[in-house]
């Protein structure tokens, strides 16, 4: 039963995260200033890897870092150790959930290797400076140091992923600088982002090959992501092939933006994807032909390989097909508890403060930070819901992010999906606000036209 998986944390997860915390705490005051307590925590990390293939490299790196030598190679080993622990925690959590949901998962094959060349040195250098200074040592100048690497990575082929990540971290550091006086430091979060960026900055990071896929795509819901310079809509969907197999996939479209473009008007930045936005807003299926699918279950959206299909009810589809759909494996280096986002359909639950009561004394908390202004879902709708399609996430505990709800509002049944506003808000008040905010896009484009090409 799902409740059983949500009730307890798998063995070993707490211990793995305690080792991660030791590294994270060392990054708060910087690797240039490791006190005895931090040194002991880093040594425990090295000890945990003794006898593994990474053991010698990590022991060597930790020893050198404590002695005051911080090179790119040592940092890569430290980040690798941290990633391995979080990857193991991810596997334990995911496997508990898969068992509870009766979800089968395809095995992961070996990965191919990418080549991003010399663009990565600038990124590594900024990340090294951050690690040495520590979060508390980040001032305005260091926070702004990512601007150059981000600009070249945004323009480079195959380096968009790293560019978007670095830009998100840099924006947070810029807004928090000088971090020395920040009341509370998001220790785990910044270490996560730093670690992933450092791994992506290594030569030969494993890439994702794609194979062409055909079939009918039934959207379960859409998850919206954003930082000051990106907006992304990621749909979770069932892909039905002609041979009758059903796979759980994701597909997404993202656009660069600026901080003043946010809320419902951010959808305007995705104007290059009318079919994608249309199937979300009109709740339709899509017929796809020869669209690239990664082994990790990411369908690389291509408007020329998609056609809008029939109207479809995601709740009905989930009731019939979600239970038996095959889940795809997670790419080895992407494994992290924060990457868990497992689609589930919940019905027949009770309501408790800020959560759903699943019975048997188990309550799953709602992830209210993930009810975006760019969509119509609200905490009140979740509280009035009788059925919910959502993503199960883990951030120290299990959380449910609603993607769609069936609810009773003013004694009338309503169904609300997070993607309902993909072509603009339907509700009058929100539509008016969107129209006003939407002119922001036009104003900035006009300014760009006049000033950029001087």
């Amino acid at each position, binding site marked *: 039963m799902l409740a059983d998986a949500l009730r307890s944390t798998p063995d070993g997860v707490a211990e793995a995260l305690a080792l991660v915390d030791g590294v994270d705490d060392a990054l708060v005051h910087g690797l240039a200033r490791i006190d005895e307590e931090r040194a002991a925590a880093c040594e425990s990390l090295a000890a945990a890897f003794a006898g593994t293939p990474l053991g010698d490299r990590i022991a060597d790196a930790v020893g050198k870092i404590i002695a005051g030598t911080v090179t790119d190679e040592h940092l890569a080993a430290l980040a690798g150790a941290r990633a391995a622990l979080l990857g193991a925690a991810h596997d334990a959590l995911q496997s508990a959930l898969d068992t509870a949901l009766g979800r089968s998962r395809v095995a992961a094959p070996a990965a191919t290797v990418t080549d991003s060349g010399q663009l990565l040195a600038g990124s590594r250098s900024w990340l090294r400076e951050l690690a040495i200074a520590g979060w508390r040592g980040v001032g305005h100048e260091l926070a702004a140091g990512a601007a150059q690497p981000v600009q070249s990575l945004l323009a480079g082929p195959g380096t968009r992923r790293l560019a978007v990540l670095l830009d998100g971290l840099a924006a947070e550091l810029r807004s928090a600088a000088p971090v020395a006086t920040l009341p509370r430091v998001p220790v*785990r979060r910044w270490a996560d982002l730093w670690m992933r960026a450092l791994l992506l900055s290594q030569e030969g990071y494993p890439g994702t090959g794609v194979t062409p896929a055909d079939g009918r795509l039934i959207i379960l819901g859409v998850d919206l992501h954003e930082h000051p310079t*990106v907006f992304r809509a990621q749909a979770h969907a069932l892909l039905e092939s002609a041979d009758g197999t059903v796979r759980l996939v994701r597909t997404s479209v993202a*656009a660069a933006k600026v901080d003043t473009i946010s809320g419902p008007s951010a959808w305007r930045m995705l104007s290059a994807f009318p079919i994608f936005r249309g199937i979300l807003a009109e709740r339709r299926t899509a017929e796809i032909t020869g669209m690239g699918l990664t082994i990790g279950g990411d369908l690389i959206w291509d408007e020329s390989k998609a056609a809008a299909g029939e109207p479809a009810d995601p709740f009905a589809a989930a009731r019939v097909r979600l239970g038996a759909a095959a889940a795809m494996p997670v790419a080895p280096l992407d494994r992290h508890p924060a990457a868990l986002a497992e689609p589930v359909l919940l019905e027949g639950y009770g309501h408790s403060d800020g959560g759903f009561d699943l019975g048997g004394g188990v309550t799953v908390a709602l992830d209210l930070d993930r009810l975006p202004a760019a969509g119509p879902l609200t905490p009140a709708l979740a509280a009035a819901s009788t059925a919910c399609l959502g993503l199960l996430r883990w951030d*120290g505990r299990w959380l449910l992010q609603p993607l769609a709800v069936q609810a009773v509002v003013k004694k009338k049944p309503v169904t609300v999906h997070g993607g309902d506003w993909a072509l603009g808000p339907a509700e009058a008040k929100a539509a008016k606000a969107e129209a006003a905010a939407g002119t922001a896009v036009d104003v900035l484009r006009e300014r760009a036209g006049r000033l950029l090409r001087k």
Partner: protein
Amino acid sequence: MTTDGAAYERRSAAPVIAPVQPRKLAKVPFVELADGRLQGVVSSGSDVERVYVSSITAGDHGLSCNTNNNRPCGGLAGGSRACNHLRALADAAVAQYGVDRVARYLKADLPDGGDDLWAGLHPATAPNRAAEVFAGFLRHLAYLEVAPTTDPLPELQWFPAAPAVR
């Protein structure tokens, strides 16, 4: 920023940047709290090709206002009385971030519940930072020209879209 469950320090999705409020951009297309300054760009009332680059330093409250061609603003004229561009910049910042956040960043002393930012500032003159700030604005605008992408971008799981300001 507190929550039940894991402490803020131990959450991967801990929120860091507060959502910004939507505002009209025609007069002040760009404003940011960065590099120890409230800084931004104000459209000229008379010439569509011209913008003013204005800034107020945190702590010292040093004022600076110049055109994008690096001519000094006649209204400020190197003094410490804010010109209309600086007032528009401050208004835009308050609309975007709220008066509390702007006052905290600039280290302006406002009485409890005070909403007039200028009452808490002790303006002085400051060196010209127009070139730097204008370069930042051009970088900002350049994002609108970056092509969209359909790459899976797994790290965006750490970046939920901004929740409604409740």
